């Protein structure tokens, strides 16, 4: 086919273009024509269509996400906020952490292994592009029912993909979630988080300033990955069924990514990078427009110079390719030899493909002809913004009215059995089948990993120069789709509440938030309502708890036909512990310690694990979020940890006190003898009230902790003592730890082999 140049576009203003096939609306196409004052070329259409896609432009979510900024609490810690590749937080002593969570849901449904693997790869490159060394990953996963056939296809592949990629990069996996619910069948959620470390004064940004600076593409060669849509542009007549031949699946090469990490770190060290951007979705289109838009405003790129894996690729396809393991850097001309030498040392191919200009235009050529000539900001920042209509779902009131009060509750002599049923249910059972496929030890800085409530890393040996700090960082991710379905506003707050608590029980002080918002179609007003409510709830809760949102990701269209997944906001919280040797271990760590329950318990069973597992019921309202109580609890926990009062801890969440006690016993195989504090043992054991934690302390520390709790107005009950080989609940039951273990560990292996 003939090349669609700017010249040709001017000569053939009325040529029909496949913008609909590329997912563009009529008015969006008209806007492009308006911006350019002519029809776009095929290559320009490729750029605008990907840059203005939901995925890249956040066109449906933008108006809501603004609240994360407008309602943001004042935070000294925030160094880089939303809008960059990842947020950056000051963690003290001159060091900063950058972290972000991102979804790779649909690709993981199509090809679980590669979809999940490239999800990890993508988020790691985001962290690298901030100038940081990636130091750990986490994964938050949702699958259909554990025994549904498609789950048996998807889960093993996803786990292998995450493990295969992360393990090969040498990034310890320090936590995550695995949740099963039939609502995710056909729409599994794979959310990957990466955290990195850097010197506070060495943050890199995605910007291309300085005319004359060179644009370098480095990493893997460009192939036909993920360009299903682009082939309509490259084909002679897009009316034909020409899309089938190009793969939508991207395949990852973790070895190349590992080389890229080490190569980038050496480039940063040598100070030969002016600006840098990873290539994710929308590949070269995204990297060039964003770098140019944030820099001097102009760039000239010769697309013929892009090294190709598939020599038949057309320029439109090169622009849209999502080939993995690529980065783009802006480099001063004098530094090019040093830059190239470092790439050669690491066997990373690198090519100068263009130059920064002061024209304010992004110009690209192919075979010497101009095929792109646009103001880059119009593609990168001035995409469409929708105020999508939203409306409370028709069934919401009825759902909330169907409370768990009508469900029969177990008699005292059935509580033992109820506990074991819950403990062995797929959502509460041990996730070791999954986590044992992940390396949690590599690089030797992992202080806490699964099954601890939060992952924790020592900082001092992560990078040269960090020896001076005693600090550590803690991270947890949480989300509960059932709660969010019942009340998305509260559900989002509860996700934050739990992640915040999980960080606090380790002794770390929660500092900042990332989030991944997984929802159905934004074109459905009921889904849009869930989304709007969740964002409003999360933004409000972040303000109350004083933790800013630093970044995140929105994943829409997680639905099959009109059946959307439960709204699933997943929240990641990062905290800092001043002295990492003061970290609190998980659960009961020794015999003869006093067991205390912090926080107060109400009758909160709406959306609970008990209602779900025993009655397959979802109705009523979730537990009320109590952020003030959450903040006081965290303050007690971090103070007590710093003073060395806590020997072990565990938060209460899904499954309530019953499950927390069982997990605390399982942590080190230490039993306990406890008396329930309230007068309804069922509620005591299975209610999911928020802002509660279980701790164990040396007997002589009991009074000090009780006083600390009293000062902070955190209710506190002595439940009993640790020791023995069974979980004993006075007057109700006794379960040997070995029996707990058997029930807890056998569920996933018996399903997944």
């Amino acid at each position: 086919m003939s090349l669609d140049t700017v010249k040709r576009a001017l000569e053939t203003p009325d040529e029909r273009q496949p913008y609909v096939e590329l997912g563009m609306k009529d008015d969006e196409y008209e806007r492009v024509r308006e911006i350019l004052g002519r029809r776009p070329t095929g290559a320009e259409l490729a750029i605008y269509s990907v840059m203005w896609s939901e995925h890249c432009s956040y066109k449906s979510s933008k108006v809501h996400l603004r609240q994360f900024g407008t309602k943001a609490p004042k935070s000294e810690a925030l160094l880089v906020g939303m809008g960059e590749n990842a947020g950056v937080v000051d963690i003290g002593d001159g060091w900063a952490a950058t972290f972000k969570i991102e979804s790779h849901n649909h690709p993981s449904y199509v090809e679980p292994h590669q979809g999940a693997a490239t999800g990890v790869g993508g988020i790691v490159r985001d962290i690298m592009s901030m100038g940081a060394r990636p130091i750990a990953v986490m994964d938050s996963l949702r699958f259909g029912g554990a025994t549904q056939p498609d789950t048996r296809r998807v889960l093993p592949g996803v786990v292998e993909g995450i493990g295969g990629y992360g393990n090969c990069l040498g990034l310890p996996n320090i936590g995550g979630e695995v949740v099963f619910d039939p609502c995710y069948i056909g729409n599994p959620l794979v959310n990957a988080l990466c955290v990195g470390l850097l010197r506070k004064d060495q943050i890199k940004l995605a910007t291309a300033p300085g005319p004359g600076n060179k644009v370098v593409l480095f990493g893997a060669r460009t192939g036909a990955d993920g360009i299903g849509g682009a082939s309509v542009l490259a084909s002679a007549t897009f009316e034909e069924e020409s899309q089938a031949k190009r793969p939508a699946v991207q395949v990852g090469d973790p070895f190349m990514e590992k080389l890229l990490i080490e190569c980038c770190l050496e480039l940063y060290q040598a100070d030969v990078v002016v600006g840098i951007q990873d290539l994710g979705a929308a590949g070269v289109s995204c990297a060039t427009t964003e770098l140019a838009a944030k820099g001097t405003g102009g760039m000239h790129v010769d697309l013929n110079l892009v090294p190709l894996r598939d020599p038949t690729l057309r320029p439109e396809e090169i622009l849209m390719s999502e080939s993995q393991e690529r980065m783009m850097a802006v480099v001063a001309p004098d530094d090019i030899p040093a830059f190239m030498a470092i790439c050669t040392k690491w066997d990373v191919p690198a090519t100068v493909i263009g130059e920064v200009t002061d024209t304010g235009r992004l110009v690209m050529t192919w075979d010497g002809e101009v095929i792109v000539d646009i103001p880059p900001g119009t593609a990168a920042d001035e995409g469409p913004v929708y105020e999508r209509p939203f409306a409370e779902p028709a069934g919401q009131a009825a759902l909330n009215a169907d409370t768990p009060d009508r469900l029969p509750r177990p008699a005292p002599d059935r509580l033992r059995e109820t506990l074991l049923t819950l403990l062995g249910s797929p959502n509460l059972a041990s996730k070791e089948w999954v986590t044992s496929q992940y390396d949690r030890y590599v690089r030797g800085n992992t202080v806490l990993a699964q099954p601890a409530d939060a992952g924790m890393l020592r900082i001092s040996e992560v990078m040269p120069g960090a020896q001076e700090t005693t600090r550590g960082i803690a991270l947890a991710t949480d989300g509960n789709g059932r709660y969010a379905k019942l009340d998305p506003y509260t559900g989002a707050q509860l996700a934050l509440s739990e992640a915040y608590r999980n960080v606090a029980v380790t002794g770390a002080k929660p500092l900042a938030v990332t989030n991944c918002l997984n929802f159905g179609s934004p074109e459905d007003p009921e889904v849009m309502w869930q989304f709007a409510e969740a964002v409003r709830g999360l933004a409000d809760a972040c303000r109350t708890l004083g933790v800013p949102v630093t970044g995140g990701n929105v994943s829409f269209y997680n639905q099959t036909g009109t059946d959307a997944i439960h709204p699933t906001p997943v929240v990641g919280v990062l905290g800092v512990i001043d002295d990492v040797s003061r970290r609190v271990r998980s659960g009961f760590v020794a015999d003869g310690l006093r067991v205390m329950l912090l926080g107060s318990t109400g009758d909160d069973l709406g959306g609970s694990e008990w209602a779900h597992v025993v009655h397959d019921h979802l109705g009523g309202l979730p537990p009320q979020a109590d952020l003030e109580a959450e903040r006081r609890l965290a303050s007690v926990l971090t103070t007590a940890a710093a003073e060395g009062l806590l020997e072990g801890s565990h938060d209460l969440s899904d499954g309530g006190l019953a499950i927390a006690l069982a997990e605390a016993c399982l942590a080190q195989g230490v039993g306990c003898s406890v008396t329930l504090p309230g007068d309804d043992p069922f509620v005591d054991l299975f209610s999911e009230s928020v802002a509660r934690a279980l701790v164990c302390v040396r007997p002589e520390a009991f009074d000090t902790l009780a006083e600390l709790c009293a000062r902070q107005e955190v209710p506190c009950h002595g439940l009993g003592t640790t020791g023995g080989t069974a979980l004993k609940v006075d007057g109700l039951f006794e379960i040997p730890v070995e029996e707990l273990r058997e029930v807890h560990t056998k569920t996933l292996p018996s399903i997944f082999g």
Partner: protein
Amino acid sequence: MSAARVGIVTFPGTLDDQDAARAVRLAGAEAVPLWHADRDLRGVDAVFLPGGFSYGDYLRCGAISRFAPLMDELIPAARSGLPVLGTCNGFQILCEAHLLPGALTRNAGLHYICRDQRIRVENTGTAWTREFTPGQEIVLPIKHGEGRYVADAQTLAALERDGRVVFRYAGDNPNGSLNDIAGIANEAGNIVGLMPHPEHAVEELTGAPSVDGRGFFTSILKKLVNA
């Protein structure tokens, strides 16, 4: 007396080199980085081949690494007595380089597995195990997808007869290794390879819930100091 110098080899894709260096330092020796592309052992007294995914573990684990320029120096040095320890990918490289017999193949369970594993020390006569007691059980992390040791019957019999099975899995065999073999030595006892990771078990705060890995590093130190 200057500290003993232990070389830590980094191939493209090596991951545990930082851990290995830390373990060497904690034991009181100097960790000397060795780069795969240099034909230079930098005069070290012993060499540690750490774990990871050298060359992505593509083709076979260790298959490509063994052709690195550094290996041209290391192979003859090891044959003439230089103490060498290979863990995980390092063990795989030693087998691919024929410095140790047999091969490491896909785990019988077909999954990568990371867990804290009980190991029995069977031979305390090697350069890397003299600080243990015969039959001592230790806990070290394992983390590998291809750790099932195989060798032909004759080789296995010879290993057993000569006491060259240095480590055996105690309790559950995690990967289907023949004779529960977790690690072996060459005839001279200077070259030892094992799948478990001593370098991840040297500190209270981090890594595995044991510090049993320290024995490897104190063993080699003692040997070098007494040599």
